[in-house]
């Protein structure tokens, strides 16, 4: 077992970090957020650096594996990147790759090049983390399929060109069978889009399908076999989310440490107060636990064992949520008043972690899932 990065991985990490340090400093990020949170030019830059290809097989123009995706995600978390890389690159890429669609390479090429932004429209309001909760219906018609339903919290939904939409052809809300995956153009008649900002400055949207007709060739893969693909890709996206959270937790901790060493009250640096020192020690423990669980998730992804992957996604997300809540909250607390200002960066780390905690299922959801699997055993 080797937890060190190999040379290629180090190069990848360093190049992402260097780029973001230059182009995505905190003030630059503020401007990006003010401009709408998804800079298409920035996205194209990501493409040119090859990062949209990371984690996809070479045969379709990709580079590296899921470990490399996690590396990029961690860096993005460190820099609080607003662009929806996790969803529109990693998650969308995995879905397309495994969808069983005919010409996967043709579908992935515009994703990799950044020409097309794919939004993942899968989550529904009642799902609350359940990977297979789909009530959006798809009914066969003469022209293709008619879709009815609602999707929520689609990252990058306001800017996406095309959506990967999960809809149920048959079965009940949580059945694995009966789910289909469609590729839907943004301007399809009957597609309602309600975009909004999230509290961390990123963007998302709710989608509604009101008797929306999509052609037959919008269907990716089989009419009822998308369930397993969604589960698998969802688990990877969950672990990817953990990697992104890890990056943010790590930076928040060290920013706080630096603050404690510089801020003076009562004639001394407040970092000399033992109660605060011990708090930081507890935060460090939470960070280490988080890092460990990211590795565990990556190992499960590598193993090829599907059941292990699904279980690990829950364990990792549960731990990352706990660590994030603790480190995020204490980071603000240890900063005192400035921790709750918009001006200072630490509050933004808190808000980003808040958003990531809810994406791909909250830690409470995943704990419940683990509990459920214990009962079933």
């Amino acid at each position, binding site marked *: 077992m080797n937890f060190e990065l190999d040379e290629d991985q180090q190069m990848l990490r360093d190049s992402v970090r260097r780029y973001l340090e230059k182009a995505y400093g905190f003030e630059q990020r503020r401007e990006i957020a003010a401009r709408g949170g998804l800079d298409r030019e920035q996205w194209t830059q990501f493409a040119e650096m090859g990062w949209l290809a990371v984690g996809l097989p070479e045969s379709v123009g990709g580079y590296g594996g899921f470990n490399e995706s996690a590396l990029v995600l961690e860096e993005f978390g460190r820099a609080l990147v607003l662009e929806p890389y996790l969803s529109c690159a990693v998650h969308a890429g995995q879905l397309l790759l495994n969808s069983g669609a005919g010409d996967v390479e043709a579908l992935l090429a515009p994703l990799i090049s950044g020409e097309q932004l794919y939004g993942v429209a899968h989550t529904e309001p009642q799902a609350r983390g359940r990977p297979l909760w789909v009530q959006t219906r798809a009914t066969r018609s003469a022209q293709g399929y008619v879709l009815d339903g609602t999707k929520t919290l689609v990252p990058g939904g306001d800017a996406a060109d095309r959506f990967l939409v999960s809809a149920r052809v048959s079965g009940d809300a949580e059945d694995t069978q009966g789910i289909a995956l469609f590729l839907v153009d943004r301007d399809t008649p009957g597609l309602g889009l309600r975009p909004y900002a999230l509290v961390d400055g990123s963007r998302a949207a709710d989608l509604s399908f009101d008797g929306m007709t999509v052609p037959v060739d919008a269907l990716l893969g089989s009419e009822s076999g998308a369930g397993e693909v969604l589960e698998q890709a969802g688990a990877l996206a969950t672990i990817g989310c953990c990697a992104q959270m890890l990056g943010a937790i790590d930076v928040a901790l060290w920013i706080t440490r630096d603050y404690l060493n510089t801020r003076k009250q009562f004639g001394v640096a407040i970092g000399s*107060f*033992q*109660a605060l*020192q*011990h708090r930081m020690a507890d935060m460090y423990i939470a960070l280490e636990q988080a890092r460990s669980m990211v590795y565990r998730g990556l190992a499960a992804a590598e193993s090829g064992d599907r059941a292990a992957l699904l279980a690990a996604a829950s364990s990792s997300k549960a731990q990352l949520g706990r660590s994030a809540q603790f480190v995020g909250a204490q980071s603000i607390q240890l900063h005192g008043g400035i921790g709750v200002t918009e001006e200072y960066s630490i509050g933004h780390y808190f808000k980003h972690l808040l958003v990531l905690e809810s994406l791909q299922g909250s830690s409470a959801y995943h704990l419940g899932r683990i509990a459920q699997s214990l009962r079933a055993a």
Partner: protein
Amino acid sequence: MNFDLSEEQTLLRDAIDKLVLKEYSFEQRRKHSRGRGGWSREVWAQLAEQGFLGLPFDEASGGLGYGPVESMLVMEAVGRGLMLEPYLDCVLLAGGVLRAAATSQQLEAWVPPIVSGEQLVVLACGEKQSRYRLDDVATTATAQGEGYRLKGSKIALRHGEAADRFLVSARTSGSRTARDGISLFLVDAGSDGLRQRSYRTQDGLRAIDLMFDEVLVPESHVVGTIGEAASALERGAQSAIAALAAEAVGCMQAMLDLTVDYLKQRKQFGGPISRFQALQHQAAEMLVEVEQARSMAMLAALVLDDDDAAERERTLSAVKALIGRSGRFVAERAVQLHGGIGVTEEAAVGHYFKRLTMIDLQFGDSDFHLSKLAAGGGLIGRAERA
């Protein structure tokens, strides 16, 4: 609403404090624990003499007619002194069930020997399958001639070995978990067909399992009305929870005091460890928990007199949930802050730890009560709008 002690209450509290001071130093406690059954009959006799055993019983049956607040004051002292005697089990729990179920003639006959200290009565209601549910009664009572035949078994009766009589819940009708059909019987310890198996518990006391093999109980020893004992059992359990809350507060306060003293006198790294801020803050957190627990013990005493049974149940679940959690927190912190000696048999702090752990487990632990509260729709349902 008045949080100051009345004169009478002050006298009562001073009396029990004095007794604890005189009879229950940690060394004396160790001696008492080596006595028969793990407690002191001498102390029990003193409790009787000073009227404590008659505290909650009404004057007609030989008691002092005091209420939950007074019981709370006594139990806090019991907790502080880590007293081993069956005050809660006999006077408050069995006594509470009796007061709720028995007829006045029965009380006049059965209570005086308890008050005088002559007889120990212990409640026998828990069974192997029942966990914390009072309505889950598999032990049966079948009518026979001028009495009843009891068959079944009860487990984990604290102080059961020393009991002269048992207050037994047995089913006269209904399915195993039905609320209706539970009856109460007063059974003498030496009865034919009654067998005991005794063992030591974690906190050094002795408990028993009781086996009923066709034990005959005369009609006169049916407590109250046949088939209607459920609410009396609830009342008893509620009194016990309120008592445990007060006892826990006493233990917690004692642990806090011990810890603060320890921090001040223990020297490491060139001075008393009380100067380390991390430890100061932990002690502060302990105090906060003690104050919360104390508040809940008071709430418990108040709600015992509430006529609304559902309100009583809910509130006491809340009390027990908090006491369990706060008690364990303070106990763990105290042991931790005592360093190595915290886990020795010699130091008092470890014994408080054990008692607080046991308190959490008695009558439902925190998780049990939180789930119960949640399933019941919660506590605070007041509409937000005026």
